[in-house]
């Protein structure tokens, strides 16, 4: 459905995205992760046709994102990363304006969404809180029942309850077979809502994987509590294990799947008081790619 092929878009500052390739299949929900300035919004700008790429192509439903933008917009929902509404409009005026611009006649979905997010549409949008603006942005993106959704940090500014409700909305849309690409900083929501994950760093896609597979393929953390710290720490180090945080009575060890056997055999050489498995979340994986000590 969404097809990005060798997409390169450079800014005069030298930043941008470089040779980005990915695909989002019909009915798939993909999380797009990356630190600030990595190129998430730039990718979405290209997909919306706001910026003509320097080279490469991107298309949605077979239509070219730059040339056929108006055609694509008919079945597209979009939440901007930084939402700014047109000046001097009330909430309900804005929603009506967007419906008129799109030629939407059916307002049932809009009503459902307003109820779902407990949105109050009266009053000038300018005076609304960040969260309220975000809710209007969400309603605007979903109210015309689009087939494809491009969501740029859709839950920023929402309280935890509403973030939860948003994940429910995504799961509900997924059941209907919608194709969704969402950038996010909230690992929990990506883990819950998305099938696949893309991680972008310095304008290049560094990881493209199934959420579950990604979690499994990554190294696991163990916290081991030996009887004798010094000797056991030496044994582990000599065996070539990566040692994380060391406290006065415990050692953190990271291993990848194939080293499990070696790890157990090495640990058998000294007395172990306690062994804990450190559950690794997507966040840890992310930090592994982005943390200062990450490779």
């Amino acid at each position, binding site marked *: 459905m969404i097809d990005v092929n060798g997409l390169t878009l450079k800014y005069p500052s030298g930043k941008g995205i470089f040779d980005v390739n990915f695909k989002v299949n019909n009915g798939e929900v993909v999380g797009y992760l990356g630190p600030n300035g990595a190129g998430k919004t730039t990718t979405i700008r290209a997909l919306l046709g*706001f910026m003509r790429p320097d080279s490469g192509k991107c298309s949605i439903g077979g239509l070219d994102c730059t040339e056929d933008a*108006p055609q694509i917009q008919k079945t597209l929902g979009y939440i901007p990363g930084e939402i700014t509404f*047109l000046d001097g409009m009330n909430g309900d005026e804005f929603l009506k304006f*967007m419906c*008129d611009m799109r030629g939407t006649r059916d307002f049932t979905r809009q009503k459902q969404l307003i109820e779902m997010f407990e949105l109050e549409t009266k009053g000038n949008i300018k005076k609304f809180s960040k969260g309220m603006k975000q809710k209007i942005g969400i309603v605007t993106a979903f109210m015309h029942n689009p087939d494809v959704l491009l969501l740029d940090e859709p839950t920023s500014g929402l309280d935890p309850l509403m973030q939860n409700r948003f994940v429910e909305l995504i799961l509900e849309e997924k059941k209907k077979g919608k194709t969704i690409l969402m950038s996010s900083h909230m690992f929990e929501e990506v883990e819950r809502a998305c099938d696949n994950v893309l991680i972008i760093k310095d304008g290049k896609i560094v990881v493209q994987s199934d959420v579950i597979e990604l979690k499994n393929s990554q190294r696991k953390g163990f916290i081991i509590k030996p009887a004798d710290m010094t000797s056991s720490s030496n044994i582990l180090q000599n065996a070539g294990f990566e040692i994380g945080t060391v406290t006065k009575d415990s050692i953190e060890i990271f291993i990848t799947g194939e080293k499990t056997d070696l790890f157990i055999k090495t640990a058998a050489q000294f007395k172990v008081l306690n062994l804990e498995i450190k559950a690794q979340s997507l966040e840890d994986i992310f930090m592994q790619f982005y943390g200062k000590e990450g490779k």
Partner: protein
Amino acid sequence: MSSTLFKTTLKKNWTLLLIFFGVLTMYMTIMISMYDPEDMEALMSMFKLLPPDLMKALGFSSLATDLTAYLASWLYGLLMIAFPMIYSIILGNKLVAKMVDNGSFAYLLSTPNSRVKIITTQGLYALSTVLVLFSALFGLGVTVCGAMFPGALDITAFFRLNLTTMLVNMVVMMISFFFSCLFNETKMSLSFGAGIPIMFLLMNILGGASTNIEFLKKFSIYGIYDPIKLVHGSEVWGVNLFYIGIIVALFIASVFIFKKKRLPL
């Protein structure tokens, strides 16, 4: 053109037009009421005491004694240029660059409307308000003159005057609009959208003040705009066509540039 967008733009901007129409209504009414055929000679002799260069620079050059020429020199010489210019600068920037700068333009483009359609709508709104403004001012002039000095106004000449004044102001509107489409930042859009029309006006004033630098007028869009000549009936279609040509060219250029450019939305 998108009628939904046109209506919304109108809803958000009609007050701006009304303010400028109000100010110009006030000036026009005062100017007409100050007209006194018998006093005109006395007034003229008084102005002869002022430095002729100064008068020429401000566009009050010809000795006008009939009502139509009186309005042409005192009202259309500067006020009907300067005030609509401010209007054009404000509106031109507001219609595109401001919305691109603050990001709200993203919402216009996230609907099934092409950039060309959106920009054409905004541009047509800009031009149509200038048309409305000068139609209203023409109507007002005819009405007020008819009430105060029945039969004194040469309506055909006054129409010619308003038509060309409207066109020169549409050129200014399109200059501001063009820079609004060209730049993504309000700062730049305003610098050029205001700077260039003001420069044209200053060139015209300076060029009129001294024969040494009269050539400056030739490079100003106002150089061929002569309200007194318009009233005195010489054919002005060449001037009008020239202005229409610039308006159309700038409009097309604006749409074309906006269609192609990258929008940081």
